[in-house]
């Protein structure tokens, strides 16, 4: 009984230390905010997703065409829109960087 209680107390103490660890390590942190990536990063991420999806689809189409799963006729009708989609996604990512630059340049100070 005593041993069980001692072990339980030890376990509880270890848990308290583990839970309090972030505060014990940095008792007075200068910055305590969770990384907030904000709307801009979210937008970038969505555009990068669209780009990767379009590039991946192009790669897969090429391979399916090689295997014979996609006929020449289907390949010709699919490859154009996919290339445009990928190009649009790449373009959309580029001006975003420019827009970021502009926003930064306009920022006072």
């Amino acid at each position, binding site marked *: 009984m005593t041993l069980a209680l001692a072990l*339980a107390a030890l*376990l509880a103490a270890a848990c308290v230390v583990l839970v309090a660890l*972030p505060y014990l390590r940095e008792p007075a*942190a200068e910055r*305590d905010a969770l990384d907030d990536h904000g709307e801009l990063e979210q937008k970038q*991420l969505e555009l990068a997703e669209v780009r990767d999806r379009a590039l991946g689809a192009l790669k897969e189409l090429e391979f399916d065409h*090689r295997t014979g799963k996609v006929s020449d006729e289907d390949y010709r009708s699919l490859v154009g829109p996919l290339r445009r989609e990928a190009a649009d996604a790449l373009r959309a*990512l580029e001006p975003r960087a420019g827009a970021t630059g502009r926003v930064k340049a306009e920022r006072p100070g």
Partner: protein
Amino acid sequence: MPELGRAALVATLGLVLYAVVAGVAAASMRRRRLAASAQNALIAAFATTLVAAAVLLAALVRNDFSFVYVAEHTSRDLPTGYTISAFWGGQEGSLLLWLLILTGYAATAVLLNRRRTRELIAWVVPVLGAVALFFAFLLVARATPFAVQTAPADGAGLNPSLQNPYMLAHPPMLYLGYVGLTVPFAFAMGALLARRTDERWIVATRRWTLVAWTALGVGQLLGAHWAYQEVGWGGYYAWDPVENAALMPWLAATAFLHSVMIQEKRGMLRVWNVLLVVLAFSLSLFGTFLTRSGVLSSIHSFTESSIGPWFLGFICMVALGSLALVFARLPLLRARTRLESLVSREATFLYNNLLLVALTLTILWGVAYPLLHEAVLGDSRIVGPGYYNFFLRVFGLPLLLLMGIGPLVAWRRASLRSLGASFAVPAGLALVIGAILLALGAGSSIPGLIAYTFSAFVLGSIALEFVRGTRARRALSGGSWLRAFSSLVARNRRRYGGYVVHAAVVMLAIGIAGSSAYDTVSEGKLVRGQTLAVGDYRLTYRALDEREAVNATEIRAVLDVERGGEALGAVAAGKNAYTAERQVSNEVGIRSDLVTGEDLFVIAEQVNADGSVYVRAFVKPLVNMIWLAGLVFLLGALITLWPDAREQRRLAVRYGEARAHAGS
């Protein structure tokens, strides 16, 4: 040391409560240290639950009958392996196993994702904590495994049907599956709460879903083999509610694993995917509720159960809460692309999803109807195998066919010319095999014939995919065929691992169709020297053996087997009379033919005092394909699960770029 076990569970309860409260506060107030503290609380909760589990395990191994749980589920004569499996043999122990696996998964998910998906994990922690809180509450307040008593001289023993080697692996595998579905659920809810509905939650959880799905699949096959060997009725799946409880979340997770590809490839079905994750998790809770609440015995025992009403309340809360959250976030989940054609890979995935969900809901209705009928009208109803078998054919056969069609159809759209070229070989192969089988007499079962024809089509399409892919890869990179083949699989493990899993499902279908549609049965009373014919076999009753085992008296009728005049040895079938448990179990005799995949399956229904036995014998063609399918399924799942360094690099680049652009 029951005090230590109780204290450890109270500590778990406190820690997960803290993880919920601090996690919500940290995520909504954007506090970094508080979020890290909540994450640490989840990790600590795993450690405390592990201590509680160790205490119970030690009590079981030491036969400490002062623990009520140990006395109710073990005895001194019980072999050590089964003493350990008694951990999950009763309600309290299995709830503790649930909590142990859940906190273990939660701690692993936190450690793996605390840097990779920081924004999501802040909300994932309170969701995981909330699920753990429910189970910790049950274990502390409603069903403690640490209740004590004055120790009796011996325990009541373990249910004889659980005294089987499969019981060492089957329940833990199922629990790994059930509980594993909590992680995708938590990430889906975390993504909605954080308003981050991009692909990250899917990337973070796809592997977790695969692990849970694989464990559920393997667990069910182990359970089927256990039922085949141990229950002694001549089958492996009886559409029992407990079996259905594991099948439903597996089907929902199967639908998710397919539809998630449409989201990744085309950005579509975002609402559907979240709903499937909610459905799979709710069904995993429902499965645990079915097996643990007493509701299957009767509504009366459910209302008297210490946990049943709590469980039902929690399931309703999870389902309604998640649906409300999905509804609130609908604008974020809107798809940006549309289905271009009804003849495309994504369309076949969609049909597959509709069939899988329809099958799941049909099974759910079959399980729920008797319970609802009893609750509302007071008398119980039985939904028999006929209902389930009918819908298995209605939804399962088209699903089987779609497994062959899907790989042959291109993404976006496919012309008739493309389809004709792709379908020619597998469709031709299927028709030839169907015609041969019909000529050999397989037309005695039309569903069986259709299943075999479709199976040939699927196997043909899978083989074609491997051949064409290897040829294209070799043309691109040169080298040997073997090198081209391994490069093909390594470059797209999900696709080709998936095909291996499809091959396993086909083997399963062949095994099920063979053993159920084309089996033979014969029965009769035999005295020594008499013979029973079944199929091509002749069984001659030679002797009745009796021996004392550690915890049971084993009686076996020994029957000599011959086929076409050739002696094939003997099978022994009989009964075990368990001393401590005061129960008798059927012990079947099985002779497997590994060349044909067929089993001779013998049950000694009655062993009479005059030495005669009443024997029922089955010949089950191709039944061993079912167990072999389990190995192939595991191989396919492992290929799919294997980490893909290429994808990890692509994602790292994507997130790095987005961060750099945003920060510049």
